């Protein structure tokens, strides 16, 4: 067996590099799939890029959630071109206005190819920083900051209106949103282009591992940006549906239950003491109750919002769901959440506006809030209730009020604490996590993926 010739060996390297990068991002790709991908490359040829992208996606991916990561990694390993843009070769560094002009035209035409070319030129002209090799690079942030594509909205709108003539149509009112989406797409192109240029400088493998944004369900709640949170919120419904089926399956299995020894023996008397027919323990068909205590202070609100929506979407799995929010005082928000389904984005703001969550000061105080819960809403917790506490257990050095937690834990069936902080940070600074963890089961819950795993495991059936 001799090694394949130059370009082919390079292709194999590229493919395995791509697979390695995907694996580093948690996409499970087996060797079989890699071989399939290679066969796909063979069947499709390298002449065109888009079929190649689709072909590799079809063979390597198994779900839709991984596609965003794949696209970014693909752009690095099979780049559209090498080096700077071919034609102007970066002479436009001074012509910011000229570039903006051309960008506005391209946006008005919705000409994707031209936009991509402009993105390349923009990064080339405005994205470079540093001078010594090793510290220089290309920044999409810097490019976009200089170019400010978002400020072109009004111009592009005027352009399209002027050109269209029949601008009075009904669909015309959608124009703003459409242009915004085009601009957003352009920003994505700039980011991809900057990543590609950096990868040329620093080595593909490293950039593919570091600079590619992880898929939404693996983003840390505490560091998620606005877009990622929006994306997560969109994932609530499908995720809830999936969890509901999983819960139903667990319930079905649990209903088959264990053998009721007393009744089996009792029944065996009629067959001379031989237990011919095992009697299963009958389960009382009660649906469990759920109480959620959510810290909605700034630091962890993304996490709480998401979890609240998820539990709300699961509400028909339980006989009763009650949700309480706190910062340093606690209030019930179950009602707000029901309306929240129609407008999940405004949920956090509405909770903070309509519920009494703070008194005296605005920072979170677990001891005070938990104490108030045990006092005012103690009746909400009974022997059938499972309580979830969501928060980072950072008490701002105030009294953690362990007695209140003990009291709630004594009344409830189970109490779980979901902490969006990394386990290694528990107990550092003002975190009272270890103290609470001694009383109730505490789980690390940093990403949507972890959350759905925990919910599937911990929710009572």
């Amino acid at each position: 067996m001799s090694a394949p010739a130059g370009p082919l060996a390079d292709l194999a390297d590229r493919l395995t590099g791509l697979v390695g990068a995907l694996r580093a991002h948690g996409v499970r790709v087996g060797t079989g799939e890699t071989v399939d991908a290679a066969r796909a490359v063979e069947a499709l040829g390298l002449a065109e890029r888009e079929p190649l992208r689709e072909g590799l996606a079809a063979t390597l991916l198994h779900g839709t959630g991984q596609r965003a990561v794949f696209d970014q990694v693909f752009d690095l390993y099979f780049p559209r071109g090498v080096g700077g843009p071919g034609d102007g070769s970066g002479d436009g560094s001074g012509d910011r206005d000229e570039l903006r002009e051309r960008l506005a035209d391209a946006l008005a035409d919705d000409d994707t190819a031209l936009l991509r070319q402009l993105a390349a030129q923009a990064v080339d002209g405005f994205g470079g920083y540093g001078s010594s090799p090793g510290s220089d690079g290309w920044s999409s942030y810097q490019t976009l900051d200089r170019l400010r594509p978002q400020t072109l909205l009004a111009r592009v709108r005027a352009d399209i209106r002027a050109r269209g003539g029949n601008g009075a149509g009904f669909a015309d009112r959608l124009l703003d949103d459409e242009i915004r989406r085009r601009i957003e797409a352009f920003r994505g192109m700039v980011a991809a282009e900057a990543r590609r240029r950096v990868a040329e400088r620093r080595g593909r493998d490293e950039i593919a591992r570091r600079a590619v944004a992880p898929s939404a369900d693996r983003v840390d709640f505490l560091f998620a940006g606005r877009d990622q949170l929006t994306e997560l919120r969109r994932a609530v419904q499908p995720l809830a549906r999936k969890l509901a089926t999983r819960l139903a399956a667990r319930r079905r299995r649990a209903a088959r239950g264990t053998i009721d020894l007393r009744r089996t023996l009792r029944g065996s008397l009629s067959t001379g003491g031989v237990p011919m027919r095992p009697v299963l323990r009958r389960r009382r068909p009660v649906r469990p109750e759920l109480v959620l205590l959510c810290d909605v202070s700034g630091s962890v609100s993304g996490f709480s919002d998401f979890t609240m929506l998820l539990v709300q979407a699961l509400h028909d799995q339980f006989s009763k769901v009650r949700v309480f929010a706190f910062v340093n005082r606690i209030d019930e928000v179950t009602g707000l959440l029901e309306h929240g389904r129609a407008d999940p984005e405004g949920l956090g703001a509405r909770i903070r506006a309509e519920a009494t969550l703070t008194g005296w000061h605005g920072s979170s105080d677990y001891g005070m809030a938990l104490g108030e819960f045990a006092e005012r809403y103690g009746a909400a917790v009974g022997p059938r209730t499972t309580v979830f506490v969501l928060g980072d257990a950072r008490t701002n050095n105030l009294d953690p009020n362990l007695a209140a937690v003990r009291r709630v834990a004594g009344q409830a069936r189970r109490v779980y604490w979901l902490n969006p902080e990394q386990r290694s940070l528990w107990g550092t600074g003002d975190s009272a996590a270890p103290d609470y963890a001694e009383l109730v089961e505490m789980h690390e819950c940093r990403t949507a993926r972890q959350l759905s795993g925990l919910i599937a495991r911990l929710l009572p059936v």
Partner: protein
Amino acid sequence: MFTSVDDVSTRLAETGYLASPAVATTVFLADRLGKPLLVEGPAGVGKTELAKAVAEVAGARLVRLQCYEGVDESRALYEWNHAKQLLRISAGRDESWDDTRTDIFSEEFLLPRPLLTAIRGDDPKVLLIDETDKADVEVEGLLLEVLSDFQVTVPELGTVTAARRPFVVLTSNASRELSEALRRRCLFLHIGFPDEELERRIVRLKVPALTETLAESVVRVVGALRAMDLRKVPSVAETIDWARTLLALGADTLDEQVVRDSLGVILKHQDDIQKAAAKLDLDAL
């Protein structure tokens, strides 16, 4: 079956299925690599239609297995015709048991169900396993043997291996996560909503009487609705329905009144309708 990706697009288009580049590429690969195709996507984007179109292009017979909760081996694979076997036994009273036994477990008494049908015989077939996610996990285990080796084992008859591999399409609405083992055996294709240009072509193809400008505004409005955060966003099927409705209403341009009257065709929840009406300024009349 196909010579190139473009060949797939053109031939599918001839049957009235306009494929996006992603769809065409994946169909081409599924044919080339001989692997089953797992298609996911929202309802109403043409997952089932794709299988039908491929069958038509290939001049193949479409064998369809509709999955539902509780579908089992005897519905999916094969079943023995018990009544006929009983008749056979009582008809041949004088025979020895050995003769009868070998006879009643022969092809004549076998009722093939879709999976076995798709594998037997030499004619080209397209096997469509629809709504795979609705079936129980056990059925997936059954599919594994069929999909990886294209063979079915009937204990009394032996193993039936496909003389000619069918083109297999599995569809799923992702209401349940399919097992990793099944996914590994398939090429994965996600059919999302088509881009504006493709959707316009689809509308023009399905509702040829619609004017060009109206089709364009319909597609733009639907695109805007999809960008909203609705409980059930309109799919391609709804776009086409809406286009037909507008045609029936005799509207030649979109205006507030028409849109408000016909919004129920594309949106299926009251909250969605209210929300969309608010965002589209329909109350500004």
